[in-house]
């Protein structure tokens, strides 16, 4: 078989005016700005809810995992492995299209997406908390125990509050990932930012809605990324 380079380039279409027309057709955006804005809110609310619930569940998982009881740490480990070791896309499709087979049906798309994103992010958050907690000097636990606190009390009043400060930068990064991951929920039909842009792109045969969606993602993610970097630098200075 003769080799054919699988990329074609059509110089006639690669003109500045065509690029502008295809990617920056502001008319398309102005006509549909409400739709896109609404979809952007869905994305933000979904990510925020999933992050908050993921932090709660993730903290529980982290505490289960670092505890001495195998009865608690083994299930936590299995959970974390499963959710970190399978693609989010598979998890979403499974939760929406496959759980009804055994009688668990989630009717609300938003809720289905929320469940999938929460379960997924909890696994990553758990690992962030675990490493945060384990980074606290052993002496803190010993000091707590020596002053008469129980293991649980020491955790709650001494270790976890200190760990919380250290995990804020990685948690912020996790939140950025989560915002971007909400786009994967579009496969089940939720009209978040990406699906909304795709519906508009297919209706107008113009790529500008996709560009607009990308700009929305950037507008929310970039500040968070720089915030996380700044927090990390400040934390490092204090530790050093």
């Amino acid at each position: 078989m003769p080799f054919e380079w699988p990329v074609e380039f059509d110089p006639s279409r690669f003109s500045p005016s065509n690029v502008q027309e295809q990617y920056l057709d502001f008319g398309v955006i102005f006509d549909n700005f409400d739709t896109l804005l609404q979809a952007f809110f869905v994305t933000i609310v979904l990510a925020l809810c999933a992050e908050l619930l993921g932090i709660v569940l993730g903290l529980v998982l982290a505490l289960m995992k670092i505890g001495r009881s195998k009865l608690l740490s083994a299930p936590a480990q299995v959970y974390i492995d499963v959710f970190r070791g399978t693609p989010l896309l598979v998890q979403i499709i499974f939760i929406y299209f496959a759980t009804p087979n055994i009688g668990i049906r989630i009717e609300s798309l938003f809720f289905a997406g929320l469940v999938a994103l929460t379960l997924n992010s909890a696994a990553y958050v758990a690992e962030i908390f675990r490493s945060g907690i384990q980074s606290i000097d052993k002496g803190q636990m010993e000091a707590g125990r020596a002053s008469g606190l129980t293991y649980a009390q020491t955790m709650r009043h001494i270790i976890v509050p200190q760990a919380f400060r250290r995990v804020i930068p990685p948690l912020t990064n996790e939140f950025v990932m989560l915002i971007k991951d909400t786009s994967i929920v579009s496969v089940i039909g939720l009209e978040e930012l990406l699906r909304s842009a795709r519906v508009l792109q297919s209706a107008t045969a113009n790529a500008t809605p996709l560009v607009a969606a990308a700009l929305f993602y950037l507008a929310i993610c970039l500040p968070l990324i720089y915030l996380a970097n700044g927090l990390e630098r400040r934390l490092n200075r204090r530790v050093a």
Partner: protein
Amino acid sequence: MVKSLFGRVLPLFVLAAVLSLAVAACGGGGGGSQGGGEDVTVASDIAYPPFESEKDGEPVGFDIDLLDEIGKRAGFTPEYQNVTFDGIINGLRNNQYDMAISAMTITPERAERIDFSDPYFNADQSLLVPSDSDIGSVDEIGDATVGVQIGTTGEIKANEFKDRGDITGEVRTFDTIEDAFAALNNGQIDAIINDLPVSQDEVNGSDGALEIVQVIPTGEQYGIAFPKDSDLRQDVNEALQEIKDDGTYEEIYKKWIGRAPKEIPE
């Protein structure tokens, strides 16, 4: 040191070799060859029975039989590429495919961007619901959730009903009609607006669980799609006319739709 460096680089070479082989293998079918007894690249959303579906890894269906027959007469071999429906028009405009057959309705909006063959199928839209549903017609949808496939005339129609106020609930888009059927069967949506023959096919395989409660007459016609000014269009139209005239069309129709066509599209 030398050995470990080699050990690190070798897998990269193997990976590169495998990748270039894969690229070459795909490239063979993906080229934009035109005319003659050549392979032509045909885009299709191969999840739309009875028009296209997959059997033993090969595409089958009404559209496939029809285009294979057209190719035989016009002197080309269709190489089918499975793509999502909403990507077809864009791909044709960018010359990623030589043509597309995907139960695609000829609409004035689409015809502005791509060219169509003569019509090859008369279709209507339909309202599909579970058999135990209270919904008996479009007027009764109210705030129920209606599923459609992204970029289809079903989506356009559903949004028309929404604009008119017949549908007050959500119109939910899915990437493939199969996803929408799955959501309907799981009770996650209440109804589907989609091409009649495809919904009918789903009803036939549903053991009475689904039914079509309304045919939405749109009088739409499917066409084979081409990039603007394609040389292939003329040849395809001539072959298509032959097929309509000599009875082959009826044969293919009966095989996939299960009855004779009421009329052959002009």
